[in-house]
């Protein structure tokens, strides 16, 4: 990366015009003279003329280069030391799996420097011990230095204990903005109840805020995306599901009677929920084939109960949108990529290296070039 301490000095680059103008002016010959014969001019002339031109151009470029160097000296060119990115390890929360900044980071860092946190916690084929308890990050690979780690995660650092906790003095957390998409469903009629649902999807899951129109009672549900589900969350879901009344189950055949306003969630991929059926809001007609093939949990009657469900919701939301049941409001916020990385530079140690002034080096180079230029000119006129 190139930077200048005194960037105004770059105005000196205008000096590049000086040798250029001199060169162009000198191209127009000073004199014109009629000779009786060009014979004695010709043989050496063609050689000299060509070499004049060649020399001239090289000299011109040389002089322009000298001007550039001098301008850089005036502008105080700064060279950065090597960024030892390979020594920095990024531990990234998978909530950022589609985040552009993280994509950029993984593209530009050396291999073996970016690790995905699983469920928010380190999980490596490499030696970091996973624990199911609250004692997270207790062990790091011996050769990893705490100072060379950077954790990029939005949620859990506050709850951590161990070497990467705030208490232990670890402060290399970066929390990037999470893309958010909001959906709103103005009203669903379900029998006599009208339900207002507002869903907002983030990278980690889906928040569904719903309220029953008559009573005004508000509820919220949060759906974790499969990958993201923390062990704790799994427990919650399990307990929630177990609380669902057996009577709420509707068999597959009966789904045909399901009204439009039922919420159907696919649980195929959720371990432990294979046999449950969930009803998903949507157009049952279009989803007929899907309903037949999947395990569904119908919760239409349970809609007022807390239930945490695992789903690959974005897909379903798209169906809702396609069915015209959800208004899609894209509120994705994303900061420019560069902003993310400015924050990494705030860290001390290996990320941030001193910027050295390149002046002395440039002076040497400029001096050598100046001497070369003079020597060439002198040699030519001998």
């Amino acid at each position, binding site marked *: 990366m190139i930077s200048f301490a005194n960037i105004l000095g770059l105005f000196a680059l205008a000096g590049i015009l000086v040798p250029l103008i001199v060169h162009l002016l*000198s*191209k127009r*010959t*000073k*004199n*014109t*003279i*009629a*000779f*009786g*014969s*060009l*014979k*004695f*001019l*010709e043989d*050496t*002339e063609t050689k*000299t*003329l060509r070499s*004049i031109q060649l020399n001239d151009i090289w000299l011109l470029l040389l002089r322009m280069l000298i001007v550039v160097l001098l301008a850089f000296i005036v502008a105080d060119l700064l060279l950065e030391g090597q960024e030892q990115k390979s020594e920095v390890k990024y531990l990234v929360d998978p909530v950022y799996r589609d985040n552009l900044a993280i994509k950029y980071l993984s593209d530009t860092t050396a291999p073996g420097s970016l690790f995905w946190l699983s469920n928010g916690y380190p999980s490596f084929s490499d030696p970091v011990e996973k624990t199911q308890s609250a004692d997270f990050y207790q062990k790091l690979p011996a050769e990893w230095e705490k100072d060379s780690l950077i954790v990029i995660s939005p949620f859990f650092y506050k709850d951590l204990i161990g070497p990467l906790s705030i208490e232990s003095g670890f402060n290399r957390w970066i929390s990037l903005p999470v893309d958010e998409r909001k959906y709103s469903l103005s009203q669903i009629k379900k029998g006599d109840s009208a339900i207002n649902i507002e869903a907002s999807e983030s990278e980690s899951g889906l928040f569904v805020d719903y309220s029953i129109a008559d009573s005004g009672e508000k509820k919220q549900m949060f759906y974790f995306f499969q990958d993201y589900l923390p062990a704790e969350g799994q427990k919650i879901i399990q307990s929630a599901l177990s609380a669902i009344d057996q009577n709420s189950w509707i068999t597959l055949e009966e789904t045909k009677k399901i009204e439009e306003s039922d919420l159907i969630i696919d649980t195929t991929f959720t371990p432990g929920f294979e046999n449950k059926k969930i009803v998903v809001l949507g157009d049952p007609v279009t989803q007929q084939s899907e309903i037949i093939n999947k395990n569904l949990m119908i919760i239409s009657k349970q809609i007022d109960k807390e239930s945490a469900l695992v789903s690959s919701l974005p897909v379903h939301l798209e169906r809702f949108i396609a069915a015209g049941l959800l208004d899609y409001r894209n509120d994705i916020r994303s900061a420019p990529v560069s902003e993310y990385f400015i924050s990494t530079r705030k860290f001390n140690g290996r990320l941030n290296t001193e910027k050295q002034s390149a002046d002395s080096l440039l002076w040497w180079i400029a001096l050598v070039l100046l001497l070369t230029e003079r020597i060439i000119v002198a040699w*030519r*006129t001998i």
Partner: protein
Amino acid sequence: MAEILEISPEILSSIKDFDWAIKTFAQGASYGKRQSRKVGTGMEFSQYRPYSQGDDLRQLDWKMYARSDKFYIKQSEVETHLSVTFIIDNSLSMKYKENSLVKMDVAKLLTGVLAYVAMQNGDRIGVAGKPGIPIGYGDRHWDRFLHYLFELDYSRAFIEPTLQNIRDKELFVVLTDMYEDRKEWQQFVKSLNSRKNEVILFHLLGQIEKNLKIDGATTFTDLESGKRLQADPDLLNKSYQKKMDGWISELREEFRASGIDYHQVDYTTPLYEIVNNFLNHRKQLL
């Protein structure tokens, strides 16, 4: 007087001036006086016959002996008429100008002076060319001669100067810059030379023409072809001078080996200097 001894272009603006300038010049420099044969500063070419036993030794021409290592007897001082034919290079290269002096003009002036001197010495003068001026003498002849000289214009190609029948001893005076493509001048001049004839060659060159001391990048144009060439004289002049000097010495050798009196002259020098040097040189030869 001084102005006339120098050359100034205004002199050549009219025939009358030309005429007057030449005569005044020649007379002013005492060239025009009728010299006695014995002193002989003119372009004499005395007649000799080889010595044969019994000849009067007082009549031996020692200068000729010095020149040729052979003994010759001078003939009696019969005024021998010398025919001097002037051959002037009128190719476009002669239009070369330096110091506001055009080479051709100087050649004409020089011709005029030498011709006048010759005429005053009783020699006959003529100019080669188409039509040229046949060998002759006298005032009317001089007028014609001068007129022709004055009106002489440039020609594009090398035309071998036509010559009259060579009868008497001929002296040819050639004035040229020697710029040639295929040695046409060299060949021509050599062809003039024979036992009976003598050839004097004035190789006229300017100073800058020889030393290329020009400041700054220059566009050179060829007077004959119009070709243009850009060069930097500062870089070139050393090698150019070498070439020039080499060329001149080559010519000098070639011609002198053939017995041709070759003179390389800086035409920009004052005319009297040129003529003086020439005549002194001739004096040494005789």
